[in-house]
């Protein structure tokens, strides 16, 4: 378990911070100077992947390595759901966190990665409590929601965070061992893990918001809903003034409860990401459907 403490420990240090998607060293440096607590290195931001209709895989380690060499903050990278070997490769490269991500094309339609077998920590997506706890049971040391990536529409991220919170509240209302056993069975997780969540009143690991965050107000909204921090993908580098927006989102994540400061951070940011409304996307094209 001590290994797990070191894995969850880094996620705890990222709290209250913003993790930004970057596709090259220049963007990574902009993110770092804006005060990002970590960067996610990937070849194409989700908005581009969504348009491409191609198979999306782990990024070329060459570009990830270049980013690792150019910033001092932790560097994360994505692997396809279930792709054990991409994970082995990224662990050999020495990235600080791996995101087993629905944004890439899943490699396994049945199993997620057995993450406890790795020394490198993993973050995984979840849209409800059952999914979050299955990922934690597999060894995920950090959870994020699965807001629709690359859309600039924050509504599904909000929905997932509210659902996870509601699921936890409902679990706390369960009466007696039998009901707890039944819920744990329906979630396909050990009873002890569910009991831990009921006692804590929250997930036993750090939970970040992710997907569709495009403005300082979006970041603050998710913080007010109880997230520990925020991932920002396409939103920043799809905007007119990435440097200014990146700083504003970092400031808003710290001062998420201060409307006067949020007013200042939200003002005069130039054109933001145009995006696409989630309800215009066909059900079977939604990324949140990937993973189970």
């Amino acid at each position, binding site marked *: 378990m*001590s290994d797990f403490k070191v894995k969850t420990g880094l996620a705890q240090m990222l709290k209250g911070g913003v993790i930004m998607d970057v596709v090259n060293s220049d963007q990574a440096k902009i993110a770092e100077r804006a*005060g990002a607590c970590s960067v996610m290195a990937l070849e194409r931001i989700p908005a581009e992947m969504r348009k491409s209709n191609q198979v999306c895989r782990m990024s070329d380690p060459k570009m990830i390595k270049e980013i690792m060499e150019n910033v001092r903050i932790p560097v994360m990278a994505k692997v396809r759901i279930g792709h054990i070997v991409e994970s082995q490769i990224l662990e050999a490269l020495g990235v*600080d966190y791996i995101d087993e991500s629905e944004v890439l094309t899943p490699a396994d339609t049945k199993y997620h990665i057995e993450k406890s077998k790795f020394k490198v*920590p993993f973050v995984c997506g979840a849209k409800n409590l059952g999914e979050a706890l299955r990922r934690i049971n597999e060894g995920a040391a950090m959870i994020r929601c699965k807001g629709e990536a690359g859309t600039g529409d924050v509504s599904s991220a909000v929905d997932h965070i509210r659902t996870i919170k509601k699921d936890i509240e409902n679990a706390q209302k369960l009466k007696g061992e039998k009901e707890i056993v039944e819920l744990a069975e329906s979630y396909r997780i050990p009873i002890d893990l569910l009991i831990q969540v009921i006692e804590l009143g929250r997930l036993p690991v750090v939970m970040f918001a992710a997907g569709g965050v495009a403005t300082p107000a979006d970041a603050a909204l998710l913080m007010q809903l109880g997230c520990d921090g925020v991932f920002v993908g396409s939103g920043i580098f799809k905007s007119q003034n990435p440097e200014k927006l990146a700083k504003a989102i970092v400031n808003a994540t710290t001062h998420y409860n201060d409307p006067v400061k949020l007013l200042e951070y939200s003002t005069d940011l130039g054109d933001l990401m145009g995006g696409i409304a989630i309800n215009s996307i066909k059900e079977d094209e939604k990324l949140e459907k990937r993973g189970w």
Partner: protein
Amino acid sequence: MTSGKPIVLGVLALQGAFREHIAYFNCILDSNPDEYSNFDISIIEVKTKEQLEKCDSLVIPGGESSSISYISERTQLLPHLYDFIANEQKKTWGTCAGLIFLSKEIQNGIENQKCLGGLNIQVNRNAFGRQLNSFEIDLDFSKFIKGCDKFPTVFIRAPVVTKILDGNCNAVEKGIIKSENTYHNSAPTEILYELKNYNNSNNDLIVAVKQGHILGTSFHPELSDNYSFHKWFLDDFVLKSCK
């Protein structure tokens, strides 16, 4: 409810694991009500200068030292932090990123990253390397904390103290970030703990220091599931002058 002397202990809450520190201190107060009945201690988050002004003591948590530095600068808190650590009545403790932020010089820092200059030390950011080199180890702190001979310490992409600085050295050095604070701490810098032969290296790595009213640790007692270290800071720093 206590009716003793009001004491405010703040935890800098710009980025990082500030809630953990707050929870540890609250746990100490809740578990030892009789011991602290002469004091009216409150633990608060510090994001603004108004909150900082209320504080008798401050903890700077782990997180990313550059994030904490940039946010403090952009939200105009930095000059007030310079003044706070220069007031030797106010006790301050930094863990990991907090240690980096409290130092006078940073090796491996980022352009325009600032440090408060409260400890006459040079620190190396990410001295052990990346996350895969993060580790947990039991250390013997009984030399300065009574009975604390097996304390579970967690080092996450941790810094170490590479140099104890003597005197005021403001000369520009390549690759070294220097504090712009004019304050100079004249108390002696005490090495509280050195990690010996870690990973078969022959170097002794300084991971805990104390200089007068300021304490710095490379590791995270706020992740240890053991509040002895926090209790020591509360008793020997925060409350000592009040008892």
